[in-house]
């Protein structure tokens, strides 16, 4: 199979993936205890009101017809109104999703900026004190719960030192980044620890490879050997891990946004679950699932770029 064909096949996988996500979300919403009509009308609905609302929501049609209507709604961007906020779900998500994406993106950026150089330092000093120190620090990061790390950072850097705000999001991009600084570090800490440990092991796996010795025999500069020959080969394994961790990073975003009062989809999800705001839960699940599968797609593309053997 040629590389182009492999790429097309990988892109085509998106279609069944999204369809399966749609089915899962649709079924999940109907498996929840109670139903949307009861949730909307509460105890006071008369039989006539129930029947009218059921018909207007299309819940009297067959399950297949309902699914088609649901897919049409997704395709045309009509996902209903939030029960709690009384505004279209799409508008709500459009406001909140960029916040979470920025938070997650910053967390990934901070984590990689710390993990990649430190993995090098640790691997090149394997089992000597810099390695042991770096591993010990990240071990603490890895084993501390997010809410605890968040509270410690809040107390020290926001409450005592007053270097950062205790919560909120600000209005400009710079304010956003400033407000999301502590949350991103909180969220990225365990991710950085996982990446650092994995990349350290991967570097140790390739540092003694024959092609690295051959690169030395060729008289290449140290930086070329480390970046082009060691890092590039070590990253192939780590990139897969980064992609897989995006999902748990979103789970962590829920907690982080709650601790730091960040108005993202994570906190919206928590609020909606407590408020039984089904349209929002359904749409958010859909949006996050799509976000994760796009992250997987991106991972595969990066991997293909790193390793020419992929897809040949």
């Amino acid at each position, binding site marked *: 199979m040629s590389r182009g064909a492999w790429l097309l096949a990988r892109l085509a996988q998106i279609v069944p993936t999204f369809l399966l996500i749609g089915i899962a979300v649709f079924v999940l919403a109907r498996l929840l205890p109670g139903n949307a009509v009861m949730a909307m009308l509460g105890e006071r609905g008369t039989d006539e009101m129930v029947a009218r609302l059921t018909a207007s929501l299309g819940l009297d049609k067959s399950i297949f017809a309902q699914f088609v209507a649901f897919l049409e709604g997704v395709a045309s961007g009509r996902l209903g109104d939030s029960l709690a906020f009384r505004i279209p779900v799409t508008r709500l998500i459009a406001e909140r999703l960029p916040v979470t994406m920025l938070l997650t993106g910053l967390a990934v950026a901070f984590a990689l900026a710390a993990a990649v150089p430190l993995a090098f330092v640790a691997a090149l000093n394997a089992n000597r004190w810099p390695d042991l120190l770096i591993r010990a620090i990240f071990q603490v990061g890895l084993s501390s719960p997010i809410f605890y790390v968040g509270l410690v950072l809040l107390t020290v850097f926001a409450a005592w030192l007053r270097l950062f705000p205790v919560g909120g999001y600000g209005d400009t991009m710079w304010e956003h980044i400033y407000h999301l600084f502590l949350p991103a570090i909180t969220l990225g800490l365990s991710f950085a620890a996982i990446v650092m440990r994995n990349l350290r092991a991967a570097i140790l796996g390739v540092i003694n490879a024959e092609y690295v*010795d051959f690169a030395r*025999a*060729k008289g290449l500069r140290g930086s070329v050997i480390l970046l082009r020959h060691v890092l590039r080969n070590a990253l192939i394994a780590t990139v897969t891990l980064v992609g897989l961790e995006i999902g748990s990073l979103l789970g962590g975003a829920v907690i982080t946004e709650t601790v730091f009062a960040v108005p993202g989809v994570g906190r919206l999800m928590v609020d909606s679950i407590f408020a039984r705001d089904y349209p929002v839960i359904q749409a958010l699940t859909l949006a996050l699932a799509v976000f994760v599968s796009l992250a997987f797609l991106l991972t595969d593309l990066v991997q293909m770029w790193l390793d020419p053997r992929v897809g040949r």
Partner: protein
Amino acid sequence: MSLLDVVDLRVTFSTPRGPVHAVDGVSFCVASGEVLGIVGESGSGKSVTLRAIPKLLHANAAVTGTVRWRGADLHTMPAEDLRRVRGGQIATVFQEPMSALNPVLPIGLQIDEVLTAHTTLDTAARRRRAVELLGLVGIASPTTRLDQFPHEFSGGMRQRAMIAIALAAAPALLLADEPTTALDVTIQDQILKLLLRLVADLGMSLVLVTHDLGVIAETCDRVAVMYAGRLCETGSVHNVFLRPQHAYTHALLRSMPGEGAARAMLVPIPGQPPRIDRPTAGCAFAPRCSFVEDLCTTTRPPLIDVAPQHRSACYAAARLPVRAA
């Protein structure tokens, strides 16, 4: 004056079971334009010797002795000077091209980076030179091949590509570590002929490490025979093959098909190669030697001149039978 002078080279690996003396006091020199073969069985220290020359061994190897390149000691010179010598003046070819070539980089880039490191050529000139190099080592349609990856090459083509990479900066000495061992016999012959042609055309010196006496006979001017980390015998290929002055060389030649006298029986060497983690006081070959005497097991024989340009470390040298021509 010789290009390369190796004096009393010792390499000790630290292992969990204690130090292992892989190379134990090896001295030799290589003259300009000369082809020197280093022959020995697995574990004799021949590859370690070769890799120790441009300081390619890892941190678990303690290396002592001097390695002089055009008079300058490679092992004490500043790292940047050593980098310029590596690849620029002393190039190395490894045994297994599949693992020595970086699997994720196109061949062209792996040539290009040598040119970037050692020449001032611009991008277009480097590309022209890379095409020329692939042509030089006999790779057809070199322009297309430049953008391909190692896994798209056959075994023989990969070894040719690795030789092209080694030759990129026009080195004066090529170190080849069993360059044909991983290849089919027919391809082996092509690669050896290629190496010899390149040595002649480019005026390079070559140090060829192999376990194959046939390869030595075909390609080398001089040969150094190694056993258990030590040199047994050095001399011209003609003299060593005709009148071996070390019992190990003698036994090795008798165990070789084809090169021995016509229809002669193959005589295997009894016993196992010695364990170099348990060094002996005397000659390391003594336990397997059919000419052994008491002195061999107690005192290590020194490497001495037995004839002009012919050195051997064997007490039985004078007693060895002359081989039929």
